[in-house]
Each structure stands twice: as C-alpha cells, then as structure tokens.
C-alpha cells in the first residue's frame, strides 16, 4: 500500500499541462530565449493562417491552430498586432484575431563600491530599480562586508524580478589585505 501510494504521487507531476493565458499583450522577457507558443481553440475543418510581425519568425505550426515563434531578434518594446490569425472554412474567411507582444527589458544597476580594506566594516549596497536581491561572497542582508569576503576580487550579483522576468547584473568589488610590515631592523 505504501509503495502504491508513493508510485501514485510520483506520477502526478507528469500529467501537469502547460498553462496558457490570453492576457494581451503577451510579455516576452528580453532577450527572448527559445520559442513562444500561440494557439486558438481548434475547430475541425478549419485552416489557420498565421502572420507574425518581423523580427519574429514562425518556426512551426503554420496552417494549424498552434504555432511557435522565435522572438530572439526582437528589441525591447511593444509590438502592436504582433501575432495575427484568421481561419478559412469552405472558402469563407473569419475575422482576424490579433495579439500584441511586449518585449520586456529592465537593466538593473548596482552602484559601485570599494575598494575596501579587509578591516573595513560592512557597507550598504544600493541599486536601481530597488526591490531586487544581492548575492555573492561577503554579502549579508543587503550589505557587503569586506571582512566576511576576505581579500581579493569579489563578484556581487543583483537579481531583479518583474513581470515574470528575471534580470541580473554584476559588479566586481576589491578587498585589499592589511599591509604587513616586517619588524624594524637596527644596527
């Protein structure tokens, strides 16, 4: 019984279906990676004719109720009526339906800090837009602590999430060791 229950629970995630939304515009994270899928409800006997504004490219599915589109060459911004489709049946044509596509880009910035001495105290990290998360060696709750990082060059990453997209940026921070003097020599 225990084994059966385990098997059942293991299989459940496999039958999860991809979620589709009809929210207009469709938001694509910049830079677009991979293909986006667009579809309309299928009616047997209909032939579907899709058009996509450049630089978008249909990579599969023309003639059917579902296509995939490559937006990798698109710059950021709103593309009005980026995806359109009409159906043909018995020589009759439907009214076309269109969808806008918004290529969404945010360029986060971390205000440069350093260089530091390893003995320096923690300093606040600042960035724009606010609301993201800092990570990296020596980073602790929005602060950079040279003494935690240690001497060397450290990469700090800022991750900002918005509109279902993830944007990141990095800076390098230098932490210098305390100079070590040799004992004073005398004759």
């Amino acid at each position: 019984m225990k084994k059966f229950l385990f098997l059942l629970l293991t299989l459940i995630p496999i039958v999860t279906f991809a979620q589709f939304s009809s929210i207009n515009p469709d938001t694509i994270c910049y830079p677009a990676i991979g293909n986006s899928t667009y579809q309309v409800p299928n009616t047997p006997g209909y032939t579907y004719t899709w058009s996509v504004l450049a630089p978008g490219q249909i990579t599969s599915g023309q003639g059917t109720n579902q296509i995939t589109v490559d937006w990798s060459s698109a710059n950021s911004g709103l593309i009005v009526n980026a995806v359109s489709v009409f159906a043909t049946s018995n020589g009759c044509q439907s009214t076309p339906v269109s969808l806008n596509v918004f290529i969404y880009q945010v360029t986060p910035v971390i205000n440069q800090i350093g260089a530091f001495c390893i003995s320096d105290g923690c300093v606040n990290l600042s960035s724009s837009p606010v609301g993201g998360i800092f990570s990296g060696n020596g980073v602790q709750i929005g602060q950079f602590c040279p003494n935690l990082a240690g001497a060397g060059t450290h990469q700090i990453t800022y991750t900002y999430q918005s509109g279902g997209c993830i944007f990141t940026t990095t800076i390098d921070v230098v932490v210098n060791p305390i100079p070590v003097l040799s004992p004073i020599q005398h004759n």
Partner: protein
Amino acid sequence: MRALFFILSFLPLVVFGQCNGFQSFTLNPQPVNNQYNPGQVVQLCYTMVGYNEISANWLEGFDLTLGSGWSNVTPLSAPSNCGGGGGSWIWANSVTSSATGNQFGPGYFFNLNMNDNNPGNDFGDQNTSNCTWSFCLSLTVSNSCSPQSLLIQVTPGGDGTMGSWINNSCALTPFNIFNGTTNQILPTIGLISHN
C-alpha cells in the same frame, strides 16, 4: 389523329395554352429559414400528373433552372415512359429543339429515337391515360461564403417547343420549387492564448 392535326396546324394559331398537369415535389432535407448550408446535399423528387396536349403537343422534357448556389446536380431516377410508344426518358445537360432551335437543359427529356441519344429531334411522351411522371435529383450546395441563389425551377415542355413537333402552342411555364439562398457561415475563432 396526329396527321389530321398536321393539316389543321397550318391555320394561324398563336395563342399559347397551359398544358402542365398537377405538379408537386419534395425536398429532403427541408430548408431552414429558406436556406441551405454550403456543401449540403439536397434530394429533390418531382411529380407531374397529366399533361394537356394542346395542339397535339406531347410531353418532351422537364427543363431544370438552377441558381448559381448549386454546384452539382446528379440525376437519381428518371420518369417512366407512359405513352408506351417506344423511347425513354434520359438525363441530358443540353438539348436543342429541331423545331424551335431553342436550347434546354439540364433536365430529363424524352428520347424517342434511342439510336441518336438526341431528344431534341423527335416527339415526346404521349399522355395516353392521365400519366404520372416522376423523377428525383440530388443537388449539392456550393462552398461559397457570399449568399448565392438556390433557385430551383422545373419547366415542363411539349415536343413542339423542346422536340421536333411543328406546333409550339404549349407555353413554357416554370414551376417554382425553391427560391432560397445559401446560408452564409463565416468561421469564427477565439482569442489567441500563449504560454
């Protein structure tokens, strides 16, 4: 009898008479809102009882008039030879009367001389005893997105009009069966969804 009329027919006679008998029909399926859908197949069965043979006009044919919304017509069953004097009813897309030079068809026409397959150069089917002529057709609605005429008319004609008889006193009176249109069905699609 017909020889006697041949002599009398040289007298001036320019009055056209109504020769058609009682006509009826069935359409299967029946139209909805006076319309049929694109691609739909409709069966028409038509019957005429009797034919008033004015000036010895024998029944020569049933000329079919179809609107542009019909893409195909298929004959299913032909009328039977009622007069019994030889010949048979055949389906013809085009018949030219040797008497009038007028062209008819498509439709069912009586071909007396079976050797030439030409109903237009001979006599019709004589109404010997209150004959009943029936035929059935299959009609297909065209795939068109703009409304098209689905007119169906059957025009019975005597052999003086459609065949080779010397007198055309029987008027050509179309019998209206249907005067509807194709149903305009535009495809509809829902919103575009994306993942």
